[in-house]
């Protein structure tokens, strides 16, 4: 098991509690996510893994009754400090969702939307380049380069998901959050996404929530196991799947409770 010895923590979660109204969804989450690595979050449904993921780009802000305490630091900066610009944060932390959700616009416009609202491109030519590069990075360019003006919703499920990844990287984020990105895809499309995740790892820090333990084992370097809103165990993926420390982790990954 070769490990990058000088790992750098990109995201640090300190004592994060999340409440939905009166119900506590996350209990005192403390963890580190390392730069240029893939971190997988696993756990049964409703365990809080997605909730935690959505804390990292403050997507939970959208929900009125959601209250968060504790700190999440990205590059040492607490994103829950008062006065943090959520729009700037999300420029830095992209997100890909469970169900591919391309905008009902052309493929080109799907990618160009982010750069447009952030004013990243100075002119049309630059925008074209961003679109092309994003699609290339998402391994979709060759499949769609001749039909950039066709609606993004007309692509296959796997292509749509890669379009969403391209959309996420179009604004050049540092962290990409993926919320069960393959749960709606067939195995081939899943394999393509996993290959893509592998290739993106060198430039981005990736956090992926997945229900497929095999997928977590395949794509991630570190895995965190959540249960009932608590982080039960977080360790090297190898360790988790060969010999986890915690009995609960073992029971979950071996299919002994649901």
């Amino acid at each position, binding site marked *: 098991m070769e490990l990058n010895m000088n790992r750098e923590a990109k995201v640090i979660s300190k004592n994060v509690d999340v409440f939905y109204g009166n119900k506590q969804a996350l209990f005192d989450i403390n963890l580190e996510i390392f730069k240029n690595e893939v971190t997988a979050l696993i756990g049964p449904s409703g365990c809080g893994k997605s909730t935690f993921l959505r804390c990292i780009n403050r997507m939970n802000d959208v929900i009125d009754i959601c209250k968060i305490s504790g700190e999440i630091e990205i590059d040492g900066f607490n994103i829950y400090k008062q006065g943090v610009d959520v729009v700037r944060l999300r420029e830095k932390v992209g997100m890909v969702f469970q169900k591919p959700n391309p905008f009902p616009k052309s493929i080109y416009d799907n990618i160009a939307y982010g750069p447009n609202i952030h004013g990243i491109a100075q002119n049309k030519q630059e925008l074209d380049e961003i679109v092309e590069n994003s699609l290339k990075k998402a391994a979709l360019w060759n499949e769609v380069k001749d039909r950039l003006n066709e609606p993004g919703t007309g692509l296959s499920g796997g292509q749509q998901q890669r379009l969403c990844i391209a959309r996420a990287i179009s604004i050049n984020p540092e962290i990409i959050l993926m919320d069960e990105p393959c749960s709606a895809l067939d195995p081939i499309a899943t394999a393509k996404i996993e290959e893509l995740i592998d290739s993106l790892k060198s430039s981005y820090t990736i956090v992926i929530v997945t229900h497929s*333990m*095999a997928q977590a*084992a395949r794509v991630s370097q570190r895995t965190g196991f959540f249960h009932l809103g608590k982080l039960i165990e977080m360790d090297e993926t190898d360790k*988790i*799947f*060969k*010999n*986890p420390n915690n009995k609960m*982790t*073992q*029971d979950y*990954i*071996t*299919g*002994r*409770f*649901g």
Partner: protein
Amino acid sequence: MSDDHIVKSYDEELHIINDAIVQMGSLTESLLEDSMNAITKMDKDSVSKIVESDKKINKFRASIDEQIMTLLVKRSPVAIDLRLAISTLKISQDLERIGDLAKGNAKKILPLPEDDLPPEMLNSMRRLGEAVQKQIKLSLDSYLERSTEKAIQVVKDDEQVNDLTKISIKEVLDFLAKDKKNLEFATNLLFVSKNLERAGDHITRIAENVYYLISGDYPKKNK
């Protein structure tokens, strides 16, 4: 197996594999005993029985291989289940090798010596055999009870087996020096001692695998 899987048939498959190893182990254990008896008592007639039960052991090995393969395909086991699958595969392999060695030993007595053998030599041979039998019993117990202590004990006991092997070989060499007539038979006895030592090594590996199965790690060599 502490808790049950959500999928019951998964548990059943693991149980079947577990039982197969236990059966295969006890079969190997008695095969080893029979082969030691054949040697110390020069009982030529039991050889064919020993060959038969070695065949049985080989069949066990093949069937366990098959079951593990199916398990890997169907269940993609992880953690404890994965370790069980991998170590079971290895244990069955070692058991088969032990069976082969025991069978080989029994066959060695087929060309019977003309004279009586010196009792000291047979005694040291018997002591070696008993040590190996004790070792395999302990090793199988450690598997059955999932006991790391017993597994470590097996590893420790290997030293003793090695020492006993040295003594036994020395006795055979003495016997050989005294009586050149039994050259062929005495040479066979040398192989028997060596084979018993190798069986001991396989038993040690079984114990190591049991240790790995339980703890996810191999026992430290210098303990």
